[in-house]
């Protein structure tokens, strides 16, 4: 392996495994910055040792141990005797993590730390954009520069956002705790909403798709997996993970070789990721069987219905319509109505779908509404109206790949009209 490859492999493993060390150190040090500093110290050691000695069998435990030792060193240097006693006691009480998989016992304390960190980072008293940034930084181990580039903001802006969020956690007294039973549903839905936002930003990002954005979806999946693992009794966490996996399984088929968007019904389904589908189907079935079915689980069932069909014609559209009706009951909203109308168009014909779209209010600034309307008008042979609807969709800014798709449709409808 070349030196650069090796360094980037270390970088990748380190960042994926560093979340638990950050989580434990925040509890003991009571401070995000000091925890991150200690983990950064450990990273420097890893860069030196891992390429030489190989990646340790349990990298997460290794990072926790090294970071903890570095935190102790720093404290010894930085603080007066009286001040450091309490913190040092805390650090010394940290159970030295097992360094080989054989020694590894399910450490409840470490798992609890990660769970605490998720709930702290996604606290409702933090602004949504701060939740996203903080989650990716502390649990995902992404650098400030990476998060900034994924969300298309300046690095200094993102750095400031993170500083402000950490200051709020400390200043406002946001607890480092897993919420109690009574608060769990509301708080969990805040965590899941944050992860879904990260996923969607990576999947449908408002600008063209770059590598950083693809990684954003992968990161959301990884963190959602962690939530599922830590909260096995929560069906909606499984539902969201299933939804992400099933959606992401279509990634390779969404764009053709020329980089053009391919709509669901025209996708080459042999390109769909079968491993993701299998896992998504299993998870969505378990989530649906587990109890009151929430909005993510219903959406996962819809994605599952697509995944199970051999093609657009073979899709059980009537079932999808029923699922959208269900979704409209648990999480009503105009976007659900729009998706439902599109499913009705497939199941009962474009006229009925169009009627339903015309009934939707308040989505005039929403690009997919005009795009869906245009497609149905075109299928009904009403080309001039379809052209007008495509043109209206194109007035609304959005993803570049999607813009190119809509421009192509518009050109085709106009060409057909002029013949």
């Amino acid at each position, binding site marked *: 392996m070349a030196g650069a490859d090796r360094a980037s492999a270390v970088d990748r493993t380190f960042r994926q495994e560093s979340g638990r060390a950050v989580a434990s150190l925040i509890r003991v*040090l*009571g*401070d995000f910055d*000091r925890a991150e500093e200690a983990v950064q110290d450990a990273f420097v050691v890893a860069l030196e040792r891992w390429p030489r000695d190989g990646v340790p069998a349990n990298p997460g435990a290794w990072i926790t141990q090294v970071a903890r030792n570095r935190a102790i060193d720093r404290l010894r240097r*930085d*603080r007066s005797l009286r*001040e*450091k006693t*309490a*913190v040092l006691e*805390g650090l010394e009480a940290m159970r030295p993590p097992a360094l080989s998989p054989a020694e590894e016992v399910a450490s409840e304390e470490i798992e609890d730390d990660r769970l605490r960190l998720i709930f702290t980072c996604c*606290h409702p*008293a933090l602004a949504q954009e701060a939740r996203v940034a903080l989650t990716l930084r502390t649990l995902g181990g992404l650098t400030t520069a990476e998060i900034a580039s994924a969300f298309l903001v300046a690095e200094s802006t993102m750095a400031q956002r993170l500083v402000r969020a950490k200051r709020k956690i*400390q*200043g*406002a*007294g*946001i*607890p480092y*705790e897993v*919420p109690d039973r009574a*608060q769990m549903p509301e708080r969990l839905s805040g965590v899941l909403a944050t992860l879904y936002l990260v996923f969607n930003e990576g999947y449908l990002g408002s600008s063209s798709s770059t590598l950083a954005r693809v990684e954003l979806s992968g990161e959301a999946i990884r963190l959602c997996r962690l939530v599922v693992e830590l909260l096995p009794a929560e069906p909606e966490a499984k539902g969201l993970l299933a939804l992400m996996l099933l959606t992401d399984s279509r990634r390779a088929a969404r764009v053709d070789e020329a980089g053009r968007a391919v709509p669901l019904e025209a996708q080459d389904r042999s390109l769909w990721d079968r491993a993701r589908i299998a896992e998504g189907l299993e998870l969505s079935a378990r989530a649906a069987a587990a109890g009151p079915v929430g909005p993510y689980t219903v959406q996962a069932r819809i994605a599952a219905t697509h995944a199970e069909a051999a093609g657009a014609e073979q899709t059980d559209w009537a079932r999808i319509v029923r699922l959208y009706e269900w979704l409209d009951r648990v999480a009503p909203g105009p976007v659900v109505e729009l998706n439902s109308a599109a499913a009705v168009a497939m199941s009962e014909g474009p006229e009925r779908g169009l009627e339903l779209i015309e009934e939707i209010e308040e989505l005039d600034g929403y690009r997919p509404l005009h795009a869906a309307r245009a497609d149905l008008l075109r299928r009904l042979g009403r080309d001039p109206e379809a052209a007008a609807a495509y043109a209206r969709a194109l007035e609304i800014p959005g993803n570049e790949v999607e813009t190119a798709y809509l421009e192509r449709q518009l050109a085709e409808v106009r060409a057909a009209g002029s013949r």
Partner: protein
Amino acid sequence: MHYMFLLIGEEPNWEDVSPEEMQKTLDEMEKYNDELKAAGAMIGGHGLRERATASVVRFSGEGETTVTDGPFAETKEQLMGFWIIDAPNLDEALAWARKAPLQEASIEVRPLVEEEGEEDITGEDLLRRVQDKDR
């Protein structure tokens, strides 16, 4: 930690409020305050008279002051009352704020600046203060 709850809302037109409704509102508020006291969470608080009774002392920066009538800005929403609450963390403070017997209003929850050497200090508080001083 100590938090200030700032009750912000639209001042009702008191002439439109029946004595019964008024009494009901007062009773509910008293019950809430009693609950805060019983839990040891109440440090203090009060409702405020209507904004029309307010006066402003303005400091010009050169040791000069002027007194004027009324509020800073003509907004519909205004400060109507406050509480000072003792709660171990924000979640507990928010839980209290949510219990307040209000219809359409908001409560802004603001942590007070902590003073050194204040009451019983837990290990975690100490830790936090040590770190604050390091900054």
